[in-house]
């Protein structure tokens, strides 16, 4: 398949969507996703993640704005654009009465690709579906159906793959399998855009993270940079003797007592020049508060995400 070598995988400019009901699902969104990147789109329910994906894939009409997929406009050059895109939707929407092999073969043809039984067999084997190829989809478990959805999306060898909540409701084993599959696809040069509720998933796989709230893309950042920039660390000190309350002399650090007074926790900015950790420990020594162990924990992407959501809600209330 001919591609535009220098074009980013996805270029979204000024994309908005207002439904007939008046609901503004997307405020102007601008986003560029490079080829071969794994991009995680995070956001609570109703934030606009699925609307954004649906517009790029051609399922929902945009109100304004443009989208290029591999350099091709999704509206005026929809054939070129859509041939390059694969979509695994959030819902398990499959033809219940079709067999696994028939439905995956159907998808390949639908996306304008010549029959290739060997390739279909490879996909089904990779997804542990080959033994089920003659089974009707209605007889499969939820996890297997999810695999079928992925097989259908990969059947036409897309260069850009959208995974909308790919691991929602699947067991741990399948989730790990999917993560492995995503990495394999990335190694082959496939660009992957995934939405997820499992922040752990984004943390595990994504190169970049976008956070969408109420239709607005409030943040797009390299995952590592984001975690460095917004990440906070927590110091936990395991006390020798329990405390009933935080001594007034430690108030400036604002630590909290947890585990029935057995542990003292102090949250600090890891990037700050003065983290406050050495001075806290010195003050504790002066007060005769000993500790037998300590550990620090970097805040997770989930912590960052929750903090961003709360920040946004607070700003809205203040306004």
């Amino acid at each position: 398949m001919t591609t535009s070598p220098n074009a980013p995988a996805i270029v979204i400019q000024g994309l908005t969507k207002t439904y007939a009901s008046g609901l503004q699902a997307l405020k102007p969104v601008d986003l560029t996703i490079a080829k071969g990147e794994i991009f995680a789109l995070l956001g609570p329910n109703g934030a606009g993640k699925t609307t954004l994906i649906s517009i790029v894939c051609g399922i929902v009409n945009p109100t304004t704005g443009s989208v290029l997929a591999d350099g091709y406009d999704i509206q005026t050059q929809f054939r070129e654009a859509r041939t390059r895109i694969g979509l695994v939707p959030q819902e398990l929407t499959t033809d219940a009465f079709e067999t696994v092999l028939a439905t995956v073969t159907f998808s390949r043809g639908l996306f304008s690709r010549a029959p290739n039984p060997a390739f279909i067999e490879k996909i089904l084997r990779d997804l542990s579906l080959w033994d089920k190829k003659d089974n009707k989809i209605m007889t499969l478990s939820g996890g297997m159906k999810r695999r079928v959805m992925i097989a259908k999306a990969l059947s036409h060898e897309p260069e850009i793959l959208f995974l909308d909540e790919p691991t929602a409701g699947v067991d741990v084993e399948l989730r790990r399998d999917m993560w492995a599959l995503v990495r394999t696809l990335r190694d082959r040069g496939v660009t992957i855009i995934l939405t997820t509720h499992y922040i752990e998933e984004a943390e595990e796989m994504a190169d970049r993270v976008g956070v969408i709230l109420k239709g607005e893309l409030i943040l797009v950042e390299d995952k590592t940079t984001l975690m460095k920039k917004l990440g906070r660390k927590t110091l936990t000190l395991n006390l020798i003797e329990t405390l009933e309350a935080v001594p007034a002399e430690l108030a400036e650090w604002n630590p909290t007592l947890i585990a029935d007074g057995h542990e003292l926790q102090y949250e600090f900015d890891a990037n700050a020049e003065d983290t406050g950790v050495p001075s806290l420990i010195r003050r504790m020594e002066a007060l005769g508060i000993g500790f037998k162990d300590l550990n620090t924990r970097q805040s997770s992407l989930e912590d960052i995400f929750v903090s961003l959501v709360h920040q946004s809600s607070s700003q809205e209330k203040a306004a």
Partner: protein
Amino acid sequence: MTGFNAYGVWAIYRFEMARALRTVWQSIVTPVITTALYFVVFGSAIGSRMTEIDGVPYGAFIVPGLIMLSLFTQSIFNASFGIYFPKFTGTIYEILSAPVGPFEIVLAYVGAAATKSAVLGLIILATAAFFVPLQILHPVWMLTFLILTATTFSLFGFIIGIWANGFEQLQMIPMLVITPLTFLGGSFYSIDMLPPVWRTITLFNPVVYLISGFRWSFYGSGDVGIVWSVAATFGFLLACLGVVWWMFKTGYRLKS
């Protein structure tokens, strides 16, 4: 990339045909049995007591009308169900996100529905030959009307399938509009047998023209002139094409 997704059209067409084969009792056997019962009741039992119409025995006279009745209902059912079911189950996402244009989608769904109902029409014709003596004076015209009618009503069914928001709506127009119009459109009688006032009123029923043209291809005579029949068929076809074009242009009930 070419401007026509032949693989895509073939995939949808084959999928729809496979669905008919999976449900062969519902798709083929049931309509054939129902039509055979019409022949037994109206053709043999009652028909033997009725006089000829335009020189054609009553049993043979009703054959074109019965085939048309099956064509109308099956074309609408096949096409409306074909596009409605993916909407209902959500699998329509795959069609909408695929590189298939509106023309290809219509060609595949309507082509499959029309193929199924045209084949069914021919099977019913063959079944009729067991019960009544048949003659087909204009076989090419007969086939032309058969295919045109199957295509037109499949397009109409496709429109209903997109429009429908539930299974009740899916059944509403075929049951409440098409079937009555067909029964009152000369399937079982010549409209010349009606009193003048009712004959005039009946001429506003578009189905009369379709059945009349099809009957003309068998016996060389119909309730209205063949030109009117051809014009009515093409008129309905063009109207359906116009509505389908508008539906895709606006994304009506397909894309929000």
